């Protein structure tokens, strides 16, 4: 076990743990935000640079500080390492710069975007973003295209985190979707617009930190804060069958996987609870699900706005 101090909180972790994972073991405010790292998808991380932290002392043996900010998702902890996240002004300033770079090409169309209200970039921009943009050039623009018949790709909004590529790589058997071109011209695409026909391709909607990949069956139907997230489950041969149904009255507007506080799909029965496309896109009939109860939502989230929910859940009494 190695000892590491993150924002004056000491914790002992396994050797080989990354700083981000060590911070998540502490929890709370010390956890750096992550846009590209996804703990359930090996190989992700190191691309978005939002999780940069300051390493004030490298290790017990060599306590010199690391000269540059380090990406906490891909830097392993050393014994006696001292990490600063919230307490470092350099980190806060650097993160503001990263957010500004991420927003260079990202359109400010949150009023239109289906991801608004549960968007990592929106939260990040709210915390670190400036009120004005300094970017004067034209933003790169693409037409929205269909990836398969159930997923819409808005390349304008993409921040090239590669999470969806890893989903395609790791969950589906034949990958027909990836990143074409390089640098400024890089774009997510299916190879000559090949449709993705795989039972688990819908999970790339869940892993997308922005609104680049959205559910076509839910497209523009409602805003997330008008819907009531309910834990539901069903007997499914392909997946765990445990999902969240976003309901409006007695109608299911959309189905997503169950996500934890970091926006990652929760484990179900020891395995990551990815859900299959049948559960996600086809089962919109409440009779096909058994409803377990309302999902707990952080009360500071906009999703809990307007839900007058008692700690015991809403009473189902009808007023005649």
């Amino acid at each position: 076990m190695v000892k590491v101090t993150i924002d004056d909180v000491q914790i002992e972790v396994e050797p080989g743990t990354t700083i981000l994972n060590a911070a998540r073991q502490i929890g709370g405010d010390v956890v750096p935000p992550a846009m590209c790292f996804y703990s359930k998808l090996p190989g992700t991380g190191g691309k978005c640079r939002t999780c940069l932290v300051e390493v004030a002392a490298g290790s017990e043996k060599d306590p010199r500080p690391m000269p540059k900010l380090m990406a906490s998702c891909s830097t392993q902890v050393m014994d006696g390492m001292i990490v600063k996240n919230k307490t470092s002004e350099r980190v806060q300033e650097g993160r503001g710069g990263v957010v500004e770079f991420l927003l260079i090409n990202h359109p400010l169309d949150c009023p239109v975007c289906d991801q608004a209200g549960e968007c990592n970039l929106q939260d990040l921009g709210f915390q670190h973003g400036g009120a004005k943009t300094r970017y004067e050039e034209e933003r790169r623009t693409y037409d929205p295209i269909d990836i398969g018949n159930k997923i819409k790709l808005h390349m304008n909004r993409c921040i090239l985190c590669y999470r969806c590529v890893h989903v395609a790589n790791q969950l589906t058997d034949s990958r027909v979707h990836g990143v074409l071109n390089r640098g400024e011209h890089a774009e997510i695409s299916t190879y000559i617009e090949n449709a993705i026909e795989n039972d688990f391709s819908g999970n790339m909607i869940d892993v997308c930190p922005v609104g680049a990949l959205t559910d076509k069956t839910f497209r523009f139907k409602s805003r997330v804060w008008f819907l009531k997230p309910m834990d539901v489950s069903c007997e499914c041969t392909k997946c765990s069958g445990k999902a969240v149904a976003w309901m409006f009255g007695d109608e299911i507007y959309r189905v997503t996987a169950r996500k934890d506080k970091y926006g990652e799909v929760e484990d179900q029965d020891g395995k990551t609870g990815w859900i299959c496309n049948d559960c996600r896109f086809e089962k919109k009939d409440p009779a096909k699900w058994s409803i377990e109860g309302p999902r707990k939502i952080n009360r500071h989230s906009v999703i809990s706005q307007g839900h007058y929910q008692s700690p015991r859940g809403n009473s189902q009494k009808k007023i005649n």
Partner: protein
Amino acid sequence: MNTMQSLTDRKKVVSKKEMTFMEKLYLPAIIGGMWITFKHLFRKNNTVKYPEETREFAPVYRGQHVLKRDEEGRENCTACGLCAVACPAEAITMVAAERVKGEENLYREEKYAEKYEINMLRCIFCGLCEEACPKEAIFLTDRIVPSNFERDEFVYGKDRLVEQLNDRIDITKRQHTGKRSKI
């Protein structure tokens, strides 16, 4: 006599003194009263003859809503739902739809409000919808919501909320009240 001490000093002793002869005639008091009435005939009226005459409204008066169009006549509203979530009376409901090719001259953004309803009986005219709107689409105006006998008539749909192309509604005064910074 054991009386309770009064809690206030507003106690008044009732006098029951006999009226004098002049007071018993009542005439001086009647004439005095009519003189006051007569004087009021020549004073300036405090009321106006509504609806023929209307008062001047404050520039920030909060009356019936309008859904604005932009300079090219396209609807500003993109059905983002921020007005509805800001509304303390839950008076606003909407259904969004996607703009198809060929409708670019009708709607400004790729999403628009297919249905947009404000229940004027629920609305408390607080103006929070206007404040929440990121697209400068909804404004409260100096028009008064007319009374009606039917409750259903108070649910205003897009037919009565969206401004007509040939009858634009001026909200420039509201925009320059310092509430919005110039972009």
